[in-house]
């Protein structure tokens, strides 16, 4: 039987699809019965999704102007 604590350590293997069939069954069985671990799994998915939305810094206008000049040189 997978404990809650163990589940938090194998969650990335699960999310990455790198679990054996039997481990996956045990993981799913635990999640099915344990609301707290469902919450944890959900938080982890939200964490990953949130990182994917971190905006990169904006390009400074002077750098953009500079690069555009290089582009003009390039296209000749």
């Amino acid at each position, binding site marked *: 039987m997978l404990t809650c604590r163990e589940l938090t350590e194998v969650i990335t293997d699960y999310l990455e699809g790198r679990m054996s069939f039997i481990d996956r069954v045990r993981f799913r069985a635990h999640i099915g019965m344990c609301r707290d671990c469902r919450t944890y799994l959900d938080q982890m998915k939200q964490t990953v999704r949130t990182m*994917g939305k971190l905006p990169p810094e904006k390009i400074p206008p002077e750098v953009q102007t500079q690069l555009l000049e290089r582009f003009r040189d390039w296209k000749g």
Partner: protein
Amino acid sequence: MSLPELSARARHGADSSPAYPDDAALVKRLLAGDEAAFNGLVEQYHGRLIRLALLFVSDRASAEEVVQDTWLAVLTGLRSFEGRSGLKTWIFSILTNRAKTRGQRDKRSVPFSALSNEHAQDDHAVSPSRFTPTGNWSAPPEQWDEDTPERLLLRHETRALIDHTIAGLPPGQRAVVTLRDVEGLDSTEACNILEISETNQRVLLHRARAKIRTALEQHVQKR
């Protein structure tokens, strides 16, 4: 399809339909000298390239130089861009090659393969104090609303918190989570760039994600 490199591929018996049609259209516009297309490309990628360069070089100025060089290399290479990989993958590979070389030259970079065991043995995804001795939750996580972290992401404070947490991770964890979760590369791409095994990559990703979740959890609870 009039792109020269695609015709060349067709002549060599390769599939002539582009694997990345949006990229093919963009490359065509760039080759035609379309300034709006170039501005769009630069706006889309510049900040992301800086973020990636900072994984390999020691300071901001070096990262900016590497990114400038990358853009010039992109222009130089565009005419022979084959479209076999996506444009993003191609640009990222130019960047990472340059950033790695620069990092080595400055002798500030350690191979990521040497960092895969950087987590301590007692590095837990969740503090052991939150479990009973038999491994059940004693202080379980609280349900977040569907959109909680994403809504919070609109706040400067939350973005700063995540950026800060990622920046404070050990280098291997920071690199993996940036490539995988922030930039959305797949595990094969991340392993190739960092020259680490799939297993090491997964361990680093696991540690990094756990720490960021914990930081977000503390942040959400303060709200």
